[in-house]
């Protein structure tokens, strides 16, 4: 076996079984949520003593769990389980729009969990939904002349994300930077972690277009997959998807990958709420807990 084919062989098997691992983990957490939540609640006091058992349920692949790391992994798993379990009773059994009370409860839960100011409404402005089906978006051109060849900073990024393609047009707000030379890390992050939302369906949008456009442009949001607790801080980087698609928002390739959400028949819903961050302190990207 050549070194290349050996690497491909390992990668192929690893990828398949990691995917199975994640799917089974999610199924287990969903199917036996009440009992797992109960034990998480009641074992917290045991900390290390409970680690062995709970780690058996999470067993992160390719991580050698040394004794010093165990508590860290346990804590992460614990909180993760809490979020999934705590959101479950706040969400309707069958998908529908959330009521104001439900939005408030979820915003409070997320605020408490992430220690951030999470809102579904700021300055009386809100989106058409805060809970919707997410679809996959393409990468956006960050500056005039940005191509797939210039878009990725590392070969690893290119390998992971190039297949998602580059949208032929610009995003709703135009280019992120005027030129390659003026592109900043902030611009790069904004494109990497963006969502497209149906700004055009926001209440009162059509009568206050300029005001709403300015409000939504790069507005910081938290997107959460309520079924696995994965969350990412993003900006509104584009408008869409069209109503006829049946999708309510779109995520950049990086966002979709982190949330472990997919397009097509297996698409699923996410929560997306504003982060009130006037001083721009909350970094974009995957978030665990604060």
């Amino acid at each position, binding site marked *: 076996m050549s070194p290349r084919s050996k690497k491909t062989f390992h990668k192929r*098997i*690893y990828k398949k079984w990691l995917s199975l691992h994640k799917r089974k983990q999610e199924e287990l957490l969903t199917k036996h949520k009440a009992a797992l939540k109960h034990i998480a609640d009641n074992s917290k006091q045991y900390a290390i003593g409970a680690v062995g058992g709970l780690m058996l349920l999470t067993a992160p*692949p390719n991580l050698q769990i040394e004794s010093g790391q165990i508590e860290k992994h346990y804590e992460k798993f614990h909180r993760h389980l809490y979020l999934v379990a705590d959101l479950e009773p706040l969400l309707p059994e069958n998908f529908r729009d959330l009521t104001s009370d439900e939005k408030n409860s979820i915003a409070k839960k997320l605020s408490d969990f992430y220690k951030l100011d999470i809102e579904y409404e700021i300055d009386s402005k809100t989106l058409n939904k805060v809970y919707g089906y997410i679809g996959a978006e393409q990468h956006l051109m960050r500056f005039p002349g940005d191509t797939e060849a210039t878009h990725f900073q590392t070969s690893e990024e290119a390998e992971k994300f190039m297949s998602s393609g580059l949208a032929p047009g610009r995003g709703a707000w135009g280019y992120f930077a005027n030129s390659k030379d003026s592109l900043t890390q902030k611009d790069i992050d904004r494109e990497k972690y963006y969502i497209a939302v149906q700004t055009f369906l926001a209440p009162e949008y059509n009568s206050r277009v300029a005001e709403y456009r300015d409000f939504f442009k790069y507005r910081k949001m938290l997107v959460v997959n309520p079924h696995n607790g994965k969350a990412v801080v993003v900006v509104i980087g584009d408008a869409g998807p069209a109503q006829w698609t049946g999708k309510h928002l779109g995520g950049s390739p990086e966002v979709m990958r982190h949330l472990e959400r997919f397009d097509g028949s297996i698409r699923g819903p996410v929560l997306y709420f504003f982060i009130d961050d006037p001083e721009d302190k909350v970094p974009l990207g995957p978030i665990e807990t604060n």
Partner: protein
Amino acid sequence: MYNKFYSHIFSVEPVHEKFASLELNESEKSELLELLHSNIHYAVIDVVLSELDEDRKKEFLHILVVKGDNDAAWGFVETNITDAKNKLLNSINPIVEEFLKDLEE
């Protein structure tokens, strides 16, 4: 590392034997083995919890998680689930077989 309450009912020796014939380094083997065990573990936990009512589920998880007592956990499973060993093997064996099949390809 992989000592679980059900470890005594099956063996992954065929996987180790297969590994010996493959040109994978130790780290790669370890990663794959860990994934195999985690998949088996989820399957086992699912079988056990699916066989128990809500109160028994909590009782079992308490033994497993809080007490961390593998022997007691296995005793609980045998006491509360009819034909437990076969039920668990019926979920474990296909996973090991599929894993071996993937290593063959």
